[in-house]
Structures are given as structure tokens and as C-alpha cells.
């Protein structure tokens, strides 16, 4: 594991700011950046203390988007909460769906068949590609490179078309169900995913050529916003942000879920932990995700896409509800009471594009969770801002924010 880390040099700022009280007090200023600012990637307000162009103090204010997702979850049945998981990290809804479904399956003791697991892996990796495409594209814009965004967003559009064929929706997919997925793969869909991968790989290279060795980009990102290994762990960083700081941690390798152990892929690890490293990790993960998707397509097993004993959690097909008494009663009970879960506590975390998303469920039995807590990676990523922003220049803030790749829907919940 590479261990080279760099601390931000704060010494100069301390020297510059000491004695300002009397002499140059007029030059210090407070600046409110946001809540709605192109560089804050959502409704995030930064209360900044500035000394000229340098940040001396930063206080992020979140909560503008707070919708009380946990409260909502505690007031509805397990099945009804699936669409709400889309709205957490709305750049990768499929990955959230999968994480929530697995968490509840753990509680219910359900085991899903291999085909369902394979479909979910494709979903997760396509969601990762889609999220990183936006992450990299907008990051390019934050550093002043407009073209990248056009390249990556075109690719995202293509992914949306694939999602639409699979789930019926382009943005809020709500694709998984507890114990399986909504429907089987459409005919010829895997072929189209394969075509997407084929045309996508040259685009990664193109973005790579445009950005990775670009002088302006390098100047703006190298050694900016360095986060040491120790800080990354202390502040609960996960996913690409943690790996960029040189920590080898990937749940897909360490604690494989949904059959990730069947696929070969590499986990990129950074060495410095600066903004540039975080970008490189995302670029490499795009390639690795394509690699995983290809393997899943090659190995796609046949069989049911739904767990055998999922009857107790999933509403029966509509045709049967209208013709068979048994299914009608089951449908009614599931809709009115919700799927009956055992008592107990589970905590499941999945490796999402932004880091690890976790669901903690305390069940007292019945169809409604007594307590559901969502562990959001973006929330943790943002909490480091008061620590790393001081000492940087005002113009570095968009770069640091972009490199953390957070999404406010998940941070505030």
C-alpha cells in the first residue's frame, strides 16, 4: 500500500493572518458561497472567511434539501420505500435500489438466484459509469474545460436509453424489488449494452487525452486539497475518495455481495490523495466497470430473476390477482400490511459510486421498519471541508468540491 502523503502547508496563512486584527482588518471578508451556486453542485452553502484570495475559515451549511427520508421510511412498508432510494444519490439510482434491496433481503433471510445477482451487478456498474461520467464531466467544467462535459453527457444519454429499456424510466428507475428485480432483461438488451461498451471505451481514451496531461488541468488539480490517509479514514471517507488517499479498501473485493467475487477487476489506488488522484481513480474505475459489465454479459446465467420464497414480500402478477383468490388475498395483505419481516437488526453497506452507502434497519417485526438509518457517503465527504479548505485559494474551492464528487440529495436525505 503506497503511503506517501502530503499535508497542506498552513504555516504561511497563519503568519499572514496573525496581527491582522489591528493592521489589515479591512481586507478580511466573509463570503457566502451558495446555497445555489454553479460550483457547489447542489444546494450547499459555504460560509467562508477570506484573506484576500485565501480561505482562512470555511463552514459548510447543509440541510436545504432535507426531506426526512428516514422518517418517511419509518412510516411506510418496505416495498413502498424503494422509489425513495432513487432520490438519494440521484446520479446513480440503480445502485441505491440494489443496496436497499439487499439490506432488506438480509433482514428477511432471502437468497436471490444467480441471474438476479448478475442483473444487479450490471445495474450497479452501469450506475457507476453513469455517475463517474457526470463526476468527471462536471469536474472538467469546474477546472475550465467545457468539452469534456459534452463528451461525457452524450454517453450518459446513451446509458439513460438503456436504463429506459430495462426499467421503464430514464432517471428514477426503482428497478429492484425485495427478493429480485422488477422484470427480466428485455430482448437484445445485453447486446445493446455490449455495443455501448464498445463505443464507450474510445471515449474514455479521448477524455483521457483531453484532460489527463492537460497543463491547465494539472496546474489546477495537482497537490490541491491533499487528504492524508489518516484524515480520509478519520472522516469516514469511502469509495473513490478513500482509495485516492492510498487506502486499499473496496467492498466489492473485501466483502463481495451480489456475486462480485465471480468477476475479475482491479481496484485503482492513489498515492497522494490530491484532487488529481481522485480524478484518476474515477477514470480508471470507468475502465474497470466496463470490464466487469463485459464479464457479466459473457457469464449471464439463465433461470428465475426472483427468489423462490419471495412470495411473502412481492406482490403477485396482476393477471393472477384478478383470477385467483389466493393471490388476491396475498396482494391485499402485502399492499395493506406490507411484507412481514422478522425482528432484528441488520446493517448492510454496498460500494456505490460515491462511496459506501449503508442501510441500518431495526425491525420490530411487521411490514414497516421501526428505525431505518441511511449512511450517506456524501455526508462524510463534505464534513472534511472545514479542515481542508483553509489555506487554499478561492478558485481552488470548485476544484476541491468537484473532486469530492458529492450529491446533496444523499447528503441531506
Amino acid at each position: 500500500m503506497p503511503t506517501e502523503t502530503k499535508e497542506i502547508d498552513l504555516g504561511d496563512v497563519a503568519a499572514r493572518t496573525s496581527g491582522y486584527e489591528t493592521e489589515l482588518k479591512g481586507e478580511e471578508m466573509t463570503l457566502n458561497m451558495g446555497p445555489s451556486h454553479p460550483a457547489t453542485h447542489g444546494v450547499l452553502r459555504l460560509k467562508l472567511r477570506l484573506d484576500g484570495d485565501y480561505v482562512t475559515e470555511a463552514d459548510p451549511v447543509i440541510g436545504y434539501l432535507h426531506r426526512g427520508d428516514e422518517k418517511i421510511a419509518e412510516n411506510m412498508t418496505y416495498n413502498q420505500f424503494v422509489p425513495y432510494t432513487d432520490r438519494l444519490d440521484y446520479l446513480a439510482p440503480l445502485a441505491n435500489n440494489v443496496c436497499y434491496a439487499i439490506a432488506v433481503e438480509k433482514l428477511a433471510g432471502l437468497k436471490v438466484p444467480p441471474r438476479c445477482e448478475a442483473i444487479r451487478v450490471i445495474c450497479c456498474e452501469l450506475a457507476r459509469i453513469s455517475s463517474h461520467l457526470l463526476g468527471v464531466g462536471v469536474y472538467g467544467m469546474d477546472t475550465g474545460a467545457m468539452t469534456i462535459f459534452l463528451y461525457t453527457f452524450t454517453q450518459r444519454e446513451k446509458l439513460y436509453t438503456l436504463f429506459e429499456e430495462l426499467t421503464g424510466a430514464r432517471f428514477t428507475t426503482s428497478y429492484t424489488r425485495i427478493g429480485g428485480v422488477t422484470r427480466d432483461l428485455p430482448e437484445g438488451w445485453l447486446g445493446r449494452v455490449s455495443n455501448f461498451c464498445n463505443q464507450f471505451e474510445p471515449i474514455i481514451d479521448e477524455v483521457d487525452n483531453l484532460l489527463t496531461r492537460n497543463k491547465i488541468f494539472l496546474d489546477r488539480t495537482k497537490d490541491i486539497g491533499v487528504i492524508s490517509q489518516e484524515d480520509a479514514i478519520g472522516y469516514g471517507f469511502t469509495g473513490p475518495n478513500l482509495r485516492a488517499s492510498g487506502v486499499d479498501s473496496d467492498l466489492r473485493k473485501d466483502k463481495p455481495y451480489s456475486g462480485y467475487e465471480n468477476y475479475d477487476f482491479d481496484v485503482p489506488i492513489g498515492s497522494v490523495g490530491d484532487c488529481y488522484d481522485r480524478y484518476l481513480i474515477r477514470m480508471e474505475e470507468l475502465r474497470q466497470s466496463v470490464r466487469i459489465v463485459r464479464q457479466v454479459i459473457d457469464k449471464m446465467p439463465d433461470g428465475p430473476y426472483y427468489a423462490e420464497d419471495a412470495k411473502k414480500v412481492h406482490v403477485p402478477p396482476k393477471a393472477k390477482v384478478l383470477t385467483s383468490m389466493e393471490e388476491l388475498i396475498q396482494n391485499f395483505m402485502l399492499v395493506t400490511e406490507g411484507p412481514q419481516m422478522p425482528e432484528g437488526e441488520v446493517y448492510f453497506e454496498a460500494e456505490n459510486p460515491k462511496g459506501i452507502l449503508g442501510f441500518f434497519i431495526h425491525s420490530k417485526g411487521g411490514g414497516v421498519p421501526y428505525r431505518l438509518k441511511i449512511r450517506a457517503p456524501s455526508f462524510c465527504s463534505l464534513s472534511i471541508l472545514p479542515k481542508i479548505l483553509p489555506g487554499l485559494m478561492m478558485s481552488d474551492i470548485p476544484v476541491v468540491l468537484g473532486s469530492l464528487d458529492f450529491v446533496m440529495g444523499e447528503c441531506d436525505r
Partner: protein
Amino acid sequence: MDAILTAKLLERFPFAEERASLDHPAIKVPADKLVEVCQVLMDEFGYSMLTDSTAIDWGEEVSPRFTGIYHLFKVSGGDWIRIAADCSDDAEPVLPSLVELFPIANWQERETYDMFGIRYENHPDMRRILMWDDYPYHPLRKEFPLAGHETELPAADVAKASGAKVIPAPMMGGPFHAPQTGEMSDREPRAADQSWTEKNEKPETVKD
């Protein structure tokens, strides 16, 4: 594997109790031992990351009412452990802060404070984080209704423009019911609106 670890932990911490769990090893410790336990878990067992810290509210009539829940994560290898600690006071719940061990606890504890009203001792900056500073309630407490309470908004012009009133939340409460009258399409089972019950009066602002 998990059972061995739990046994090891119980041996290491004689004051701890085992806690029922469907997956990860879980122990319950007294609140005043929490910092010590986390320190040992960090130094000796390698659980160096606090991935999640939250609380459970058992309802107004239960004592102890609040339980703090912590999930520690072993970064290399990926294992979790769950720690629970009861707050002794039901009206003014307090837990020790873990900020000195885990910087991330700063925000997580602020969130728990905001949502449940649990104060954290030795926390450097105990402010609300998701709701605004003067907000009088703690929304994740069980008695807080899904539709919310009518509250004065912090800015008069915002209040005037939005005309904020309590309106029933669409999926309010449960249990669910199927209306017996009306168009057939309206008779699907749905959540009962419980923004008012026998205990709570019907808000004036709510129209039938």
C-alpha cells in the same frame, strides 16, 4: 467467526452485554464506557473507521428512551461491529462524544442531536445541522408526526410567500385502509391519514 469475536469482546469488556443482531457482532456498553471501548476497538482490534452513528427512539413511555447506535468498520478486510449505548436521562438525553477519536463523529453527532435531541458531552460545536437553528422540534422522535408541526419560519418574507401550513403527508402513518365509498379507482388500499387522532386535535388548517 462472529460468535468468536463477540465472545472475545465480552471477555475484554466485562461490563458489556451481548446485543441481538442478525449479522454483525454487536455489544451493548454503558454510556460512560463508550469512549474507552471505541479506543480499545480502534487500537487493538483495528476498527479504525466510524461509518455510522445514530440513535433509536423507543417511544415516550419507554425508559431508557434513547439508544445510541455506532457502527465501527475495519478498513482493511471490511468488517463491522455494532455498539449500542443507552442514554440514562429520558428528558435530557446525553451521550459522550467520540469526536476526539473519529473526526467524522462531529457531523454525525450534530445530526443525531438535530434529529433526536441527544446532547453529546465534549462536542466542540453542538449546533443543528439539517434543520434551521431555532427549530423547536426533533423530527425523528417517534411522537413527531409525519406531516410535521406548524412552526414559525425563520424569515417573515418567506413565511408570507410560502404560507406554510401543516398539510397531511401523503403516506401518513398507516395502518393502511381501503375506502368503502367513491369511484372504484379511488378505492385502492391506502395509508390512513393520521395527522390527527383521538389524542391530537385536528389542525384547523386541514380541510376535508
